């Protein structure tokens, strides 16, 4: 830390929503030239705290000091002018589609009230280049359309724009949630550089390994209260403990369940669209299999082929001795193949519908006679899943948006575990899911996987090591290796997934 006086102090911040106290006496301070992370289980009050220091709630209690002076934020504008810059989780919300790279970089100049009526291309380009320099983005083609660059480049542009305002505090909300591991590493390098230049960074992430790696200090919010500040060196276990208290002991691993009698799903020389590598996999009932690989390794394509979204180029899919060919998703479901897709907001959640309606969506035929729904049976099923999976909600009739991200994910997992199935595929099931919900989902999968199987797809080794019985590694469409989770060698797996 370069200075001993904090540049921003938040003291005894509290906030109530109706009858619930979302935040109670939480205090953190931020220093120049450090990366400070805030962690907390979903619903702990993390986002409420961040929204308060960004000025979204005017009716908070407590004090915020900037450079020792008391300030009162009435609107996001106030926080913005006080030097607090936020880079939101959604990259798409931070850029303007249909504009060029330069225009996105110099956006403030274009929309400023002082801007001249006539569009000044030259000065915009000049300004854009200045901003780009800060983040080493000069090599980008300034004239190209923003849609033609990668996600992480877009994100860099958003960060560069925020930095151009010379912020006192730069807040990064889940910045790694939609970029690859390699891009994340690049982002961290940039953050270190900024930190060393004296920028104060507030980092918010669900990935505790990242938090451990890059933070100078870690602030914890637990159940809306101050949960302490951890200093480096800090371990992931410590952070987890501060966030949710002690967790139950490790899962039991099922090591030896392979036997031809239990064979559930077999892929024979299966060639997936867009690849020429034949895939051979055997999955046995009662096991949880992980499929590990980077973005672009072909995992999602394989999952979509199993779920009837894509047609295989050649090869066979055999479920319980029966060769199956799925023309569509409906047929896959009929054969007991269920899938929790990645990115729940886009692919799974039906907003403004109840938890119950979200759970029963694929199985309305089962819950209806001649098309008329039996709400009684639906409610019974929904209540059972809410109880079994520990979904925190006001009731089965609550809107799904009223739940925290982790609980929303539980609802989506519940949707596909509701009915009897042979195999359930989970594609990146823990994206944006807090550690407590992740545990709940994992435990439920462990308990409920007896006669069926689970194929869990992820690009995060730790997520898979946590729950699976064995892990398959996929790289460029090929299955490169397999390890039992109980004897897992992370370095070897890492080498396999990144192997060129």
């Amino acid at each position: 830390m370069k200075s001993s006086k904090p540049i921003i102090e938040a003291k005894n911040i509290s906030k109530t929503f109706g009858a619930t106290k979302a935040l109670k006496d939480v205090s953190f301070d931020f220093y120049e030239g450090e990366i400070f992370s805030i962690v907390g289980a979903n619903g702990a009050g993390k986002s409420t705290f961040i929204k308060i220091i960004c000025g979204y709630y005017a009716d908070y209690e407590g004090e915020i000091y900037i450079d020792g002076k008391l300030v009162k934020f009435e609107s996001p504008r106030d926080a913005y002018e006080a030097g607090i810059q936020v880079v939101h989780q959604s990259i798409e919300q931070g850029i303007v589609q249909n504009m060029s790279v330069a225009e996105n970089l110099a956006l403030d100049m274009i929309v400023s009230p002082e801007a001249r009526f006539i569009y000044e291309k030259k000065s915009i380009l000049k300004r854009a280049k200045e901003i780009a320099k800060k983040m080493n983005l000069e090599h980008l083609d300034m004239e190209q359309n923003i849609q033609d660059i990668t996600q992480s480049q877009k994100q860099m542009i958003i960060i560069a724009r925020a930095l151009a305002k010379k912020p006192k505090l730069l807040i990064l909300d889940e910045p790694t949630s939609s970029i690859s591991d390699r891009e994340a590493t690049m982002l961290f390098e940039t953050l270190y550089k900024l930190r060393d230049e004296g920028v104060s960074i507030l980092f918010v992430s669900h990935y505790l390994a990242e938090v451990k790696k890059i933070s100078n200090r870690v602030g914890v919010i637990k159940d809306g209260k101050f949960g302490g500040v951890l200093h480096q060196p800090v371990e992931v276990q410590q952070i987890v403990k501060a966030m949710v208290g002690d967790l139950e002991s490790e899962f039991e691993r099922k090591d030896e369940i392979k036997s031809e009698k239990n064979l559930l799903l077999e892929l024979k020389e299966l060639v997936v669209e867009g690849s020429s590598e034949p895939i051979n996999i055997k999955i046995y009932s009662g096991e949880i299999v992980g499929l590990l690989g980077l973005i672009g390794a072909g995992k999602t394509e394989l999952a979509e082929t199993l779920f009837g979204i894509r047609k295989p180029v050649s090869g066979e899919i055999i479920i319980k001795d029966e060769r199956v060919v799925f023309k569509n998703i409906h047929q896959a479901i009929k054969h007991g193949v269920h899938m929790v897709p990645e990115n729940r907001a886009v692919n799974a959640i039906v907003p403004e519908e109840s938890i119950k309606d979200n759970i029963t969506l694929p199985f309305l035929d089962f819950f209806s006679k001649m098309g008329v729904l039996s709400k009684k049976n639906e409610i019974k099923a929904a209540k059972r899943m809410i109880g079994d999976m520990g979904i925190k909600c006001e009731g089965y009739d609550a809107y799904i948006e009223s739940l925290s991200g982790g609980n929303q994910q539980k609802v989506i997992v519940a949707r596909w575990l509701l009915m009897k199935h042979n195999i359930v595929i989970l594609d990146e099931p823990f994206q944006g899911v807090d550690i407590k919900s992740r545990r709940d989902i994992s435990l439920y999968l462990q308990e409920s996987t007896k006669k069926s199987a689970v194929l869990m797809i992820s690009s995060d080794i730790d997520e898979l090591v946590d729950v699976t019985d064995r892990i398959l590694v996929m790289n460029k469409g090929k299955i490169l290796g397999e390890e039992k989770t109980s004897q897992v060698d992370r370095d070897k797996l890492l080498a396999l997934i990144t192997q060129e």
Partner: protein
Amino acid sequence: MEKYVAFAIKYGFLIVMAGSFLGFGLLEPSFWSWSNMFSILLGVTIVGILALGVTFTLIIDGFDLSIGSTAAICVMISSYVMVVLDMNYMYAILLSILLGVTIGLVNGLLIVKAKIPDLLATLGMMFLIQGLQLIPSAGMSIGTGMMLADGSEAEGEFAKEFLFLGQGRLFGMIPIPVIAFALLAIVIYFVLQYTKWGRILYAIGGNEKAVKLAGVNVERYKIAAYVISGTISSIAGILLAARIGRGDVTSGGGLLLDAVAGALIGYAVLGVKKPNALGSVVGVIFIGMLLNGLTMLSLPYYTQDFIKGVVLVCALIFTFGLSKSEI
């Protein structure tokens, strides 16, 4: 405070409606007469039926701009069949419904298969139908005794049974169109609220991709929504033809906007914020009642559209403005 806002969102509209019902009756006692009640209902049946149709497409987050012109072309086709071709009224009904189904199917295919945005596809269809309805009668209204192209006079006439659909009354009191409207409303309310088809239509409007990934043939449901919309519009057209008893080329004017306004006002009923059958019915009845009451209090007719607009904007504020928005 939040409690009051929630209460206002949920019941505000119905309270306003009940209030104006009381108010009109106190100021003008004949407003409360049975005959006036039925005259209000009869006045809104055509628009109400169309509002029920457009509800289906609104539910799937689509839109059907061709409902008014579909009803209008059905007026022309039934008149043409009975008056010019001198055929049985059953053919008029069958042909109208067949036409409605076809228009809906074409709309659905244009939107789902040709991937034309719903507003544009149905706008195009609206134009097409408006033009098409003029062709058989060379741009003239159809009525018994009209001059045909070959110089002869049209000899057919509207069948009594057909006219009964629009002008008849059950027990000499309840107009037949009102009964048709009520039956249709009940069936549609039931389908949307209590069947899996209704559930899936709403879910498609919420997140189409999620429904697709739940194994549902979304395309078929979307096409069906437009077919239903077209079919219901043709029913409205048949009732309209039966009511006016001639093939009036101008009969479709204003139907579309009034129906859409009714369905949108319906979002505010009980604060559901979604297109819904009950809301659409209540919405058109509210407008009908308001105009009827104000006319009794000698409001000039040319202010009617203005009143409808004010009601629509207020209802939209109830629905969207009062709820807390994100960021």
